[in-house]
C-alpha cells in the first residue's frame, strides 16, 4: 500500500439483524454470541471499496437510505463492518449528527473539553484551544449554559468549532452544513477550503451538489447500498442528478396515470422511445417518433391532436387523427395507442415541445393535454423555426 493512503475501504458490507419478531431476535443474538453472520438480516451496504489518499476529498452522494451514514459510521469506528475491512492510517474527526457526543446537561465549555478528549487531543493542549473554539463557534456567554438550551444552529457551530480545532487528518461531515445559518455555512466552507489547501483530507456527505462540487474532487454514488458510480466529482454528480431527474419524471408519469380520471386522457407518452418526462435530444433532420397511449372511459375510439411548438409557445405545426382519418390501435378495453412519425424533422436547432391533446370521438371537446420537451441540435445559421425546402436559381 502506498504511504499516502489515509483510508482504505475494501469490500465493506453491513448487515443488520432482523430483531422485530421474538424468534428472529433469539436467532440473531445467538449468531452474535457465536460471532457468525446473521441468518436473518437486512443488507444495508454491500461490497463498497475505495481509497482516500492524504489531501484528497471525496463526496458520498445518494438518496436517503442509500447507506451513506452507515458507511461513515463504520469508517469512524461507531459500527463494525459485517464484511470487508476499513483501515484508517491517521486521526479522524467526524461531524455526524447534530449535537452528537454532547451531554445536554453540561455546559458548552465542559462539552468542548470532553469532545476534544474523544477526538484524541492531549489534555494539556485542550485548555489552550478552548478559547479558540469559543470564538469560532460564536457562542459568547452561552458557552457556560447547558447544551440542552442551545438552538440546533448553536450545536452545529460548537461541534464544527471543536472539530476544526482538532485539525484531524481526516474530516468527516454528514449533512451538517445544512443546519447552520448562511454566514456560518460560509465560514465552515471557507475553513474546509483552507483545511484542504493545507493538505487535509475530506469525506463529505451532502445532498447539496453545490457543496459537493465546490469542496470535493471525487465522488462515490451509493444506491441501495451498492456503489453505483465512483470517480470525478462532476461526472458522478451529473450522472446522479440525471438519474434523479428521470426518477422524478417517472413519479410524475405515475401520478398522471393514477390521476387520469377524466373521460379521455393521455396516460403514456414516449418520444423516440424515451418514456420519461426528460428532454429528448435529437439532431436536425433526424426522426421524431411520438408514441401515445390514450385512455377512453367509455371504450369509444378517441381523437388525438398533436401540436409542435417552440419553447416560447410559437406554433409550428398541428394535426389530428380525426383530420387525417387515422384509427389508433386498440391495446385494451379502454386504451388506444397512437403512433406518429416525423421523418427528417426540419426544425432548426432549438428547444421545442410536442403537445398531445386527448379529445372525444367527435373531436369537439378537449379533455387532456400533455407536453413533452425535445431539443434539436445542430449547427445552422438559418433563422426561424423550420427549414423550408427551397431552391435557389443562380446566375
Amino acid at each position, binding site marked *: 500500500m502506498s504511504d499516502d493512503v489515509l483510508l482504505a475501504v475494501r469490500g465493506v458490507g453491513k448487515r443488520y439483524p432482523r430483531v422485530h419478531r421474538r424468534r428472529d*431476535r433469539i436467532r440473531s*443474538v445467538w449468531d*452474535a454470541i457465536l460471532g457468525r453472520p*446473521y441468518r436473518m438480516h437486512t443488507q444495508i451496504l454491500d461490497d463498497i471499496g475505495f481509497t482516500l489518499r492524504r489531501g484528497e476529498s471525496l463526496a458520498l452522494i445518494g438518496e436517503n437510505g442509500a447507506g451513506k451514514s452507515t458507511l461513515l459510521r463504520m469508517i469512524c*469506528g461507531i459500527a463494525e463492518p459485517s464484511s470487508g475491512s476499513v483501515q484508517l492510517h491517521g486521526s479522524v474527526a467526524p461531524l*455526524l*449528527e447534530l449535537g*452528537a457526543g454532547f451531554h445536554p446537561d453540561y455546559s458548552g465549555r465542559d462539552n468542548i473539553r*470532553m469532545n476534544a478528549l474523544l477526538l484524541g487531543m492531549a489534555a494539556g493542549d485542550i485548555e489552550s484551544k478552548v478559547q479558540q473554539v469559543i470564538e469560532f463557534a460564536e457562542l459568547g456567554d452561552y458557552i457556560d449554559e447547558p447544551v440542552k438550551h442551545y438552538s440546533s444552529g448553536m450545536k452545529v457551530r460548537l461541534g464544527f468549532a471543536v472539530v476544526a480545532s482538532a485539525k484531524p487528518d481526516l474530516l468527516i461531515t454528514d449533512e451538517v452544513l445544512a443546519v447552520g445559518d448562511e454566514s456560518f455555512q460560509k465560514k465552515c466552507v471557507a475553513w474546509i477550503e483552507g483545511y484542504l489547501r493545507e493538505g487535509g483530507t475530506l469525506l463529505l456527505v451532502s445532498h447539496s451538489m453545490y457543496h459537493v462540487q465546490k469542496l470535493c474532487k471525487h465522488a462515490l454514488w451509493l444506491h441501495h447500498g451498492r456503489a453505483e458510480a465512483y470517480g470525478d466529482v462532476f461526472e458522478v454528480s451529473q450522472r446522479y442528478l440525471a438519474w434523479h431527474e428521470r426518477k422524478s419524471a417517472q413519479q410524475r408519469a405515475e401520478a398522471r396515470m393514477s390521476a387520469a380520471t377524466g373521460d379521455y386522457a393521455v396516460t403514456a407518452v414516449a418520444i423516440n422511445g424515451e418514456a420519461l418526462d426528460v428532454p429528448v435530444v435529437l439532431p436536425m433532420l433526424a426522426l421524431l417518433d411520438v408514441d401515445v397511449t390514450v385512455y377512453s372511459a367509455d371504450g369509444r375510439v378517441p381523437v388525438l391532436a398533436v401540436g409542435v411548438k417552440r419553447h416560447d409557445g410559437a406554433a409550428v405545426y398541428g394535426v389530428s387523427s380525426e383530420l387525417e382519418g387515422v384509427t389508433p390501435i386498440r391495446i385494451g378495453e379502454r386504451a388506444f395507442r397512437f403512433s406518429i412519425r416525423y421523418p427528417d424533422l426540419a426544425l432548426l436547432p432549438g428547444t421545442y415541445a410536442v403537445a398531445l391533446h386527448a379529445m372525444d370521438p367527435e373531436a369537439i371537446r378537449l379533455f387532456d393535454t400533455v407536453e413533452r420537451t425535445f431539443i434539436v441540435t445542430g449547427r445552422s445559421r438559418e433563422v426561424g423555426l423550420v427549414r423550408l425546402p427551397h431552391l435557389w436559381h443562380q446566375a
Partner: protein
Amino acid sequence: MNSRQLALALLGRELRERYLSTLGGLAWVLITPVLLLAIYAFVFVELLGARFGNRVGGDVIAFLAIGMWPWHAFADSLSRGTTALTGNAALIGQIAIPRGWLVLVPTLGAALIHTASFVLVVVMLTLMGKTVPGVGWLTALAAYLMIVLNAAALSMVLAPLNVFFRDVGTLLPQILTFWMLLTPIFFDRSTLRPDLGKWLALNPMTGLVEALRAGILHGEAHLSALWGPAIITGLLVAFAALTARRFLARIEDFL
C-alpha cells in the same frame, strides 16, 4: 486516542453526575454511612433486638455493616454496569467511544463511592473498638478487591446481554435480592443447619463476606475462604475478557 485521560474524564463525569443534582453533593458519601449505621442500630438492635450467634448490641451493627457495605458496592456496581450500554444507546450510535469503558466507568464509579463510604464505616467501627487491626486486613482487602472485580467482570458480560435481551436488566434486581438473601449478610452461617451452610459455600460471595468479617472484625486471615472465590473470580474475568470483544462489537446492531 489518549485512553487514560479519556477514561479519567469519563470517571470524573460519572462521579459528578451522581451528585450533580443533589444539594449535599459529595457530602452524601460521608452522611449516608453515618445515617445508615444509626438506622441499623435503631432497627436491628433497639426494635428487633437481633442477635447473630452470640453477638449483641454494637457487635450486631459491626457484623451487619461489614456484610452490607461490600454487598451494596457489588450490587450497585453491577446494576449500573449492566444498564450502562442501554442507557447510553444514543451515545454509542453517535460517537466512537470505547464501549468497554462505557460499562467499566459506571461500575468502577459506583465501586469508588461505596468504597469511600465503607472506609468511613471501618474507621467508625474502629473508633467504637469493634475491629481488630492486623494481618487479616490484608485478606479483607483481597476479598474486597475480588468483589469489585467480580462486579466489573459480570457487568462486562451482562451489559451486552442486556442489549440483546432487555430482560436481563429487568430481572437483575430480583436476582440480586435473592442472591443477597443467600449471602450471609443478615445471618451467621455457623448458626444454620450444617448441610445448608455447606450449600451456601458454593456462593462465592459467602467466602468473600466471611473473609471480610474475619479480617476486619477479628484480625484473622481467612485464606482458606478465599480460594474458591478466587478461582471463580479468575474464571469470570477470563470469560469476560474472551467474550467482551465479540459481544461489544455487535451491540450497535441491536441498539
